[in-house]
């Protein structure tokens, strides 16, 4: 059901861990939905993301999207990181099954939440970044019989 890339990022996730005294930390999702992602950013004075780590509770796709999202923002500046969309994460993973698309949204939100936290701490405003929701709403699926 998962692409090879997803399996690769799930079984060998990149950037797992925590950053002490991170420039920004964002946690999104909730246990009720079954996914929680936390992303740590280390951003230098020039606004470049020097390091990024994540911790995720969730399915294979949740872990893989977190891993890929961290890879995509590493080394980028804040503005470029903001442009890493869920679509970009999905494409980089060669797609996700339809029921798992929300995982990529969560990854995007986690990056945004960490950037928001960074902006709050620095007392700056990042162009185009809005306060992220506390958690992603559950995707309502039609029941089939």
């Amino acid at each position, binding site marked *: 059901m998962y692409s090879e890339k997803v399996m690769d990022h799930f*079984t060998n*996730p990149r950037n797992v861990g925590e950053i002490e005294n991170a420039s920004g930390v964002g946690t999104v999702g909730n246990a009720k939905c079954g996914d929680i992602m936390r992303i740590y950013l280390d951003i230098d004075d020039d606004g470049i993301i020097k390091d990024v780590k994540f911790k995720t*509770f969730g399915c294979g796709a949740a*872990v893989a999207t977190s891993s890929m999202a961290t890879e995509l923002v590493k080394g980028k500046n804040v503005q470029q990181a903001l442009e890493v969309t869920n679509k970009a994460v999905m494409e980089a993973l060669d797609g996700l099954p339809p029921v798992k698309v929300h995982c990529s949204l969560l990854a995007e939100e986690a990056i945004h939440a960490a950037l928001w936290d960074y902006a709050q701490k620095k007392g700056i405003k990042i162009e185009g970044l809005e306060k992220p929701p506390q958690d992603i709403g559950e995707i309502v699926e039609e029941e089939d019989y």
Partner: protein
Amino acid sequence: MRQIYLDNAATTCVKEEVLREILPYFTEDYANPSAIYSFAQKASQAVEDARRKAAELIGANANEIYFTAGGSESDNWALKAAAEAYNSKGKHIITSAIEHHAILHTCSYLEKQGYEVTYLKVDEYGKISLEELKKAVRPDTILISVMTANNEIGTIEPIKEIGKIAHENGILFHTDAVQAYGHIPIDVNEMNIDMLSASGHKLGGPKGTGLLYIRKGVKIRSFIHGGAQERNRRAGTLNTAGIVGLGKAAELAKAQMQSRAEYETKLRDHLISRVLSEIPYSRLNGDPKDRLPNNANFCFRFIEGESMLIMLDRLGIYASSGSACTSGSLDPSHVLLAIGLPHEIAYGSLRLTLSEETTLKDIDHTVDELKGIIKRLRDMSPLYADFISEKKGA
């Protein structure tokens, strides 16, 4: 790679003896068993032999067994036909919150047709309360349907007592015995059962086979229309090979039940005790004593089930999270929520279901691998990180 199959509640490997008995009915005695010429004799005799064997396993008469295409069909038939047949008496049905979806979704279908359904709650072990059942009974109650044993957590329900309460109140009693048939002793008379659903592939028979036991005198009508098969109650050309397979599997299950249950129970208890003692923050779901011999179901805190399954799969260990029927769903198991587990714990469930082919070595290997997998996933989990830092802070 060594392969360890621990999903026998999803389906089982067809037994050699079963396969051998099935094969002639594809290419040699392939005649339609309902035909009148002599060529069909062997096939029709084989179907009747299978019917007798299937009946003997539950103390029923052969003419009370109706072959179907599986457990889900049997459940649908029993509920919808009973609802239709008895709706002049009332439109109230009692079932439990932890039934298989073949029952639950059929109930919600009936609710849309104007029936009322009471879903009995279960306790922390997954058992219904007989007192609650008595309180739920109303003058317009026409059917009680409670499963013999739960497919996810393996808890065995007090079927005999439920049937007694049903009969004292003149109510029909149906039980979904898909997981229990051939695994634990069932006697339809002693246990006051009026209708019972079973499936062939959970006990070494072929998929696509099942049966509904209907006690003589229970007046439910046909569900599949179009022919006179099964005494006008279930149309469709008889699946000779499948039925023969179910019959043979039932015969073997009856003969081997005690020794197999003893063997599986020993392995199961070894598995449970190793997991609970060696993996921190783990719990057993379901009743520790009144449970299917081959079922173990655990929750591991701070991790999510699918990740665990994929990692086990990569090591050649095949297990399931809740039931295979709901693995496409994003919601945690309705059974685990019904026994009172919060969502985040219910997500971290693992069901391991054994067979007589499972060995002690398989179990030990699985537990050894599981320990590493769970540690790895916890190291990745923000819930675990928070838990540890809170613990340190406290």
